[in-house]
């Protein structure tokens, strides 16, 4: 039993955080809103160089061969700066799905080519999932992973029809996607397809949960800065207990969401078929923390918090979107509810880490 990250994992997070904090500024995020692609190509080259994209691809396939527990802190760092590009989704959801397909001996020649291309930075990929009505950054993707009932398709962008939908978050580029089912592009079907989509949903929910606590942390940092500078009644607004307690409440929720997210990442890595409860707990806790962070941060910023000019909106709106992407609170709480209230549920303090972790004879 050791619930800590390794030195390597922690220093990787520091390195990525340093890169992102320097390069992903509110000014540059706003600049993306005016461009055709919404992508900062120079930054993406640096991100690729850092190894982030291919981190969870096995070494034999040209990646770093790491798992979700290695990536989860980096997803947090991406959330903390409100990184617009779908780096986390590519690395933590799309590529692992393609790798899963290969592992099961499925797919066609395109799969390997797409993994290679995404790892090399020459191709971009996006994922559609039945639980999400739209696909983010679908227009700049070269390939799309798409569902048709339980079937999984890998479709080139020129074979799909995209209808743009405006998100509340200007950094997000949402599209409704239509495509003609083509058997040659089918990677999986039936129970296997359903299985893979289920695992993908868990990875997507974990990816959003980790970004949500990062976003929450980012919002608290900005609110602390703002309320230290802003003076009223001859002193900093942040010296008032009422304001302090708004932000302390967010910190408490955040601190207790993190270990839940880490358990989910660990469980997906070692025992994906038993990860539903851990993942839904993580998503519900992270959404709760981030939505409170948004609400209380706007309050701490006063009227400024309600303006387009205030950079806080970049974080708040992302939290609003990610709280519901890959399953909202209702979906995840229902899954927890079903798990918890089933007649044979193993409940109690000895089962925090699952049945298999307890006395073998029990």
């Amino acid at each position, binding site marked *: *039993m*050791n*619930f*800590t*990250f*390794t030195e390597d994992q922690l220093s990787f997070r520091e390195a990525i955080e340093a890169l992102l904090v320097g390069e992903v500024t509110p000014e540059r995020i706003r600049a993306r809103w005016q461009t055709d692609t919404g992508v900062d190509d120079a930054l993406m080259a640096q991100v690729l160089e850092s190894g982030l994209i291919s981190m969870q691809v096995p070494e034999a396939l040209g990646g770093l061969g790491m798992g979700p*527990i290695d990536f989860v802190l980096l997803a947090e760092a991406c959330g903390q700066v409100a990184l617009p590009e779908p780096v986390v989704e590519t690395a933590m959801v799309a590529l692992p799905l393609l790798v899963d397909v290969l592992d099961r001996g499925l797919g066609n020649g395109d799969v390997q080519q797409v993994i290679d291309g995404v790892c090399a930075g020459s191709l971009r990929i996006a994922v559609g999932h039945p639980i999400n009505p739209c696909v983010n950054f679908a227009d700049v993707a070269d390939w799309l992973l798409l569902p048709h009932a339980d079937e999984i398709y890998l479709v080139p962008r020129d074979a799909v029809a995209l209808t743009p939908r405006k998100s509340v978050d200007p950094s997000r580029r949402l599209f409704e996607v239509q495509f003609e089912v083509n058997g040659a592009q089918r990677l999986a079907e039936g129970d296997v397809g359903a299985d893979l989509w289920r695992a993908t949903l868990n990875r997507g929910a974990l990816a959003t949960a980790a970004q949500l606590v990062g976003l929450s942390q980012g919002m*608290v940092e900005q609110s*602390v800065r703002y*309320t*230290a500078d802003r003076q009223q009644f001859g*002193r*900093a607004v*942040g*010296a008032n*207990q009422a*304001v*302090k*307690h708004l*932000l*302390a*409440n967010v*910190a*408490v929720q955040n*601190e*207790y*969401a*993190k*270990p*839940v997210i*880490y*358990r989910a990442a*660990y*469980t997906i890595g070692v025992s994906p078929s038993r990860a539903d409860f851990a993942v839904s*707990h993580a998503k*519900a*806790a992270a959404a709760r923390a981030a939505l409170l962070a948004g609400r209380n941060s706007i309050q701490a910023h006063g009227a400024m918090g309600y303006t387009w000019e205030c950079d806080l909106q970049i974080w708040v709106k992302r939290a609003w979107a990610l709280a519901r992407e890959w399953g909202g609170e209702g979906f995840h*709480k229902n899954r*927890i*509810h079903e798990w*918890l*209230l089933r007649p044979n*549920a193993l*409940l*109690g*303090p*000895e089962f*925090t*880490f699952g049945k*298999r*972790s*307890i*006395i*073998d*004879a029990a």
Partner: protein
Amino acid sequence: MDLTYTDAQKAFRQEVRDWLSAHVPKEPLPSFDTAEGFEAHRIWERTLAQGNWGMVTWPVEYGGRGCDLIEWLIFEEEYYRAGAPLRVNQNGIFLLGPTLMEYATPEQKARFIPAMASGDEIWAQGWSEPNAGSDMAAIRCRADRDGDEYVINGQKIWSTRAVYADWVFGLFRTDPNSERHHGISKILVPLNAEGVTVRPIPQLNGLPGFAEIFFDDVRVPAFNMLGEEGQGWHIAMATAGFERGLMLRSPARFQQASKRLVELYRERAGDIVDPSTEEAVVRCYMDAEAYALSTYQTASKLCNGGSIGPEASCNKIFWSEMDLLIHETAMKLLGARAEIEPETAAEIAELGSWLDGFMFAQSGPIYAGTNEIQRNIIAERMLGMPRK
């Protein structure tokens, strides 16, 4: 990261489970805030000590097992799973014990730790005074040096367990000209000393769970002071850190309570249960797990040579609010019967200790530093917000 127990940890759990199932009293003990219940709990402390289970993290020479914090968590999980009695010597073993380990001289350790471990000396705490509650640095209770003794005069209040306990540890002003957190020392006082008057204060449930203590020229040997004179504030902060940080409320307590809440919900599922109550049941279970996970994370960090940071102040807010939600939800599920104090065995089986727990939960956001103070600490020390 490895979230599985080692074979040694599994074997340890089995050993704890076996011992508890052989020794935990079959019937619940009377409340330790009655004279009879206090002695029954003292006997249970002796039983624990005889099995060397009194405080598993203590070194073997003091009756412990030299366990690390992960093993302590396993012990606690089994302890609550077994429905073992609450620890009447909690002030001693969880609060004073760790302080003695760190600050006491070898002679002081030899004098106080074995008697604490055996249950022969049960401890009360003496922090607050009538005009020093949240503002603990405002204490005025004096301890004046006179030769080899201190002469104590003044008053303490809200001293938990003081009505039946044998000793009290507390903070006293040893420098009469000092102010705030300077000139304070930590001194141990026997409650049977001449000049000590203990006046019970009935709590919300009518039982005297705490008391006022009056000191009128009470003489204690200078031997009873911990650390250096004037170092009391520093030592107290270390104790308070333990209290808030890790050991005061082990996660197993809340996991067991939220498990019972799920069971209560299942029993009541045929009755009218509104969706918001259902939601609260699920949230309580999740929050209790989150608290456990967070504690495992902290324990792992400490086992690997790390230290607790200012984020530990989040603990008290989280568990005290969770405890309220658990018991408020149970009250809702029990409906109109919730107010009835159970008397018969059938009623005890039906209503359990929810009402008592509900009343006790009201105190959680207040004691060991109110949640308002905790939020200030989080805002100022963890988030870096301005003090003034």
